[in-house]
């Protein structure tokens, strides 16, 4: 029996048809995956379902539990048992787990909270999701993975009939992701129906009973996963073309050592007794792509940011050489003029001025390149932005589009454009393909290959091991702030990388 049936849902924004007669049928007790590229319309569909776009703002019919459903808002859909957990977590970091779980739904009598009952019920809920933290623990003191579980516990507290998870593992490590997916399977066994939105096809294969693929606002296919799915099949439906090769071909012959970091140590900015990076030494050659593998929290981002103008940490010691010469990387602008660029893992918070245009962002790190003295040459700026739009295939009607309106993949390209315009010798790319779809990933990989072919050194930090294995000439493995191993591309495998991490 279908728990949910969304029929011929259409939703139009000014100038854009975001959803075009989309159908989605979710059977009771199943895990249903909705996949599609960024911008395909998955989130819009979920916003229609959860009442963010109330009845009347879309066309089509929603049938929930056999009854036509017309939600007037998100609280309305929650009352019916449809609960959505967004990609960006909606927890209040300063409050405790218990306070968060019962936020807006407090166990209270006449406005006075019954803490004993609150904590007791929280414990029960936490046990269900496999957490053993005391209910009074502050949310900001537990990791993202556990926060995700708290969100689910919160959903369970509300008598959930349909649980929607929007990219639940986007920010999670491999093992946390696995835990979460196992929890989904467990909830399924208890009768909870879920919808999962994900980019990660191996996860979809792992949990989903059926899959709906959406492309350009339309339902492309419905696949039954019980019979077994091939990733290629899904990818083909998602992008509308065959993707036999997930990584572009490359053949590289790295040259001399370009950048050499030696004995790099960094202490924590607040806890001055904690050493975050421990005597790290590594190098990258001209025309080489070097990977840094490691779990989240292993210090990869901290290593990169501390090299890039001491943007992280304190009491930094060690040396950085470029082409054999020591260089000054003590501030960001010195690092940039020395020839180093750092492409952040968090493009929205650290990479872009979202409310500004593509042009504004493209030239931001090298304004001197588009000005004479202190005066900006705005025509030159436009030319530069246009040049990168073409070179990186940034899909936008114009470079005067605000970057907030771009999809994740295109935003990432704008960040790359910004750093390419500083003409770096060495690019440090931190999770360059996080949260972007398969097609855009392929394009980013192509850009990386082009950079290496031009003789740049590329350092690539990634949590996705297949990506490192598919792209890098060498891979360093990082664990707990130290580089614990180095593997040539030919010798590397997921197992070898993991064993280096685990055996440390």
């Amino acid at each position: 029996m279908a728990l949910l049936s969304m029929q011929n849902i259409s939703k139009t924004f000014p100038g854009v048809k975001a959803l075009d007669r989309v159908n989605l049928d979710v059977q009771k007790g199943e895990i249903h995956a909705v996949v599609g590229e960024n911008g395909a319309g998955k989130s819009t569909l979920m916003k229609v379902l959860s009442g963010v776009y109330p009845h009347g703002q879309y066309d089509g019919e929603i049938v929930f539990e056999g009854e036509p459903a017309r939600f007037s808002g998100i609280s309305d859909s929650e009352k019916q048992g449809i609960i959505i957990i967004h990609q960006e977590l909606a927890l209040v970091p300063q409050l405790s787990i218990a306070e968060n779980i019962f936020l807006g739904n407090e166990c209270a009598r006449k406005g006075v909270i019954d803490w004993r009952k609150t904590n007791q019920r929280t414990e029960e809920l936490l046990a269900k999701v496999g957490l053993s933290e005391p209910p009074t623990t502050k949310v900001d003191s537990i990791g993202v993975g556990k926060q995700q579980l708290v969100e689910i516990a919160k959903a369970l507290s509300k008598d959930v009939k349909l649980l929607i998870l929007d990219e639940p593992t986007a920010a999670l490590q491999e093992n946390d992701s696995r835990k979460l997916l196992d929890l989904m399977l467990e909830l399924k066994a208890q009768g909870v129906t879920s919808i999962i939105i994900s980019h990660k096809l191996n996860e979809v294969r792992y949990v989903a009973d059926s899959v709906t693929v959406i492309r350009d606002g339309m339902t492309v296919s419905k696949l039954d996963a019980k019979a077994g799915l091939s990733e290629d099949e899904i990818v083909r439906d998602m992008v509308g073309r065959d993707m036999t090769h997930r990584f572009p071909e490359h053949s590289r012959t790295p040259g001399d050592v370009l950048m050499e970091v030696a004995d790099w140590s960094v202490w924590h900015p607040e806890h001055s007794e904690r050493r975050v990076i421990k005597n790290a030494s590594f190098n990258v050659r001209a025309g080489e792509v070097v990977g840094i593998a490691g779990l989240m929290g292993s210090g990869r981002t901290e290593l990169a940011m501390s090299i890039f103008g001491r943007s992280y940490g304190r009491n930094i010691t060690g040396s950085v050489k470029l082409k054999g010469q020591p260089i000054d990387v003590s501030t960001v602008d010195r690092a940039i003029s020395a020839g180093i660029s750092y492409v952040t893992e968090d493009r929205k918070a650290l990479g872009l001025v979202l409310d500004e245009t593509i042009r504004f962002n493209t030239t931001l790190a090298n304004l001197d390149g588009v000005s004479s003295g202190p005066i900006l040459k705005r025509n030159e700026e436009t030319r530069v932005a246009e040049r990168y739009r073409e070179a990186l295939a940034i899909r936008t009607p114009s470079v005067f589009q605000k970057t907030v309106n771009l999809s994740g993949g295109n935003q990432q390209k704008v960040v790359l454009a910004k750093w390419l315009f500083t003409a770096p010798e060495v690019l440090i790319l931190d999770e360059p393909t996080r949260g972007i779809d398969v097609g855009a990933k392929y394009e980013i990989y192509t850009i990386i290959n082009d950079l290496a072919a031009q003789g740049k050194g590329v350092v690539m930090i990634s949590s996705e091991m297949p990506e490192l294995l598919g792209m890098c000439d060498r891979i360093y493995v990082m664990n707990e702030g130290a580089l614990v191993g180095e593997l040539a591309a030919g010798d590397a495998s997921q197992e070898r990388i993991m064993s280096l991490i685990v055996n440390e």
Partner: protein
Amino acid sequence: MELADDTNATPVVKTKGIGEYISSHLRQYGLLFALIAVMAFFEVVTDGTLLRAVNITNLLLQNSYIIIMALGMLIVIVSGNIDLSVGSVMGFIGALAAVMIVNYDQSPYLTMIVCLAIGGLIGAAQGYWVAYWKIPSFIVTLAGMLVFRGLSLWLLEGQSVGPFPKEFQIIATGFVPDLFPAGIGAALADLFGARKVNVLALATGIAAAALVVWIGLRQRAQNKAYGIEDEPTSFFVVRNVIIAAALIFVMFKLSLFRGLPNVLITMGILTIIYAFITETTTVGRRIYALGGNQKAAKLSGIKTERLTFLAFTNMGVLAAAAGLVFAARLNTATPKAGFALELDVIAAVFIGGASMSGGVGTIIGAVVGAFLMGVLNNGMSIMGIGIDYQQMIKGLVLLAAVIFDVYNKNKQG
């Protein structure tokens, strides 16, 4: 994934209807039309008093110090901060000038230089804590507001000090002498049937109008060359005709009275300089980046601390300049000078479209916002509306402007 991603799924249709164009640029036109509507309203209800030459002159003089400070405040607000101390600093500098000139017989010119420098130091001192110690600007400048209010009281010993010598007064109350031969003025006076015409003022008005149209046309030609979506021709013509006509009209009125006030020249030049800095220099660009996303700006090699520091230093200098103009205009320094004025300045900037969270706002918007407030003040005073109602109406106008902004943003969202 967010809504924004979906919006990009299919390319946005580029050719928009006029209606859609208006709704996506409502803010810019809204402010201009609000100013026109308010002026038209008061012109009618005051039986033409509002736009009389003497009143236009007054309007400019009365609002000069607000506008001068709004220029600096716009930059501070765009950088993501706020400065609550400007009213007190303005009063303090006025007091300092009075004490130096009146009590200690210092030369007015030396005094002005010293006052501007001290204003800069005050701004720098506050900026230092905000920029390098990351103390919220609200708190630092709230402290500054109290400190400098106290310092003015102390300096003036609770008394009013004045009057100033003529050469100091003229910075606020003087007029630029007509440089053109008297014959032309007389001929024009006959033509218009007026008593006298200040040709310089009229010529400046025509030149300014021509400049505005020329810049507009140039911008438009460039936009076309780069395929930027531009405003419909009819809009461009109407908007420029209104602005040009308004400039010429105001200057014509001024020419019938005493000509160009010195303060107008100061204000005009400062406005042009700051508009230029914010729009076409690297420093200006970096300030918008700082306010838009401080972390991203820092990671792009922008010295965010130094920029914040400079924004406050600049604000201090402009507050000092406003203090000199204010003291010269009143011809006396009082302990009450500048009281609560920071609120008018901040209101002007927000009415002009700046965002509380930083990164958004224009110099022209802030100036028009200040004029809008000025016209409200002036019109209501002429009508004899009590200060009680005036305050309420101004408060509601500020609220309406910001609600309008938010509503607009949501609609486009």
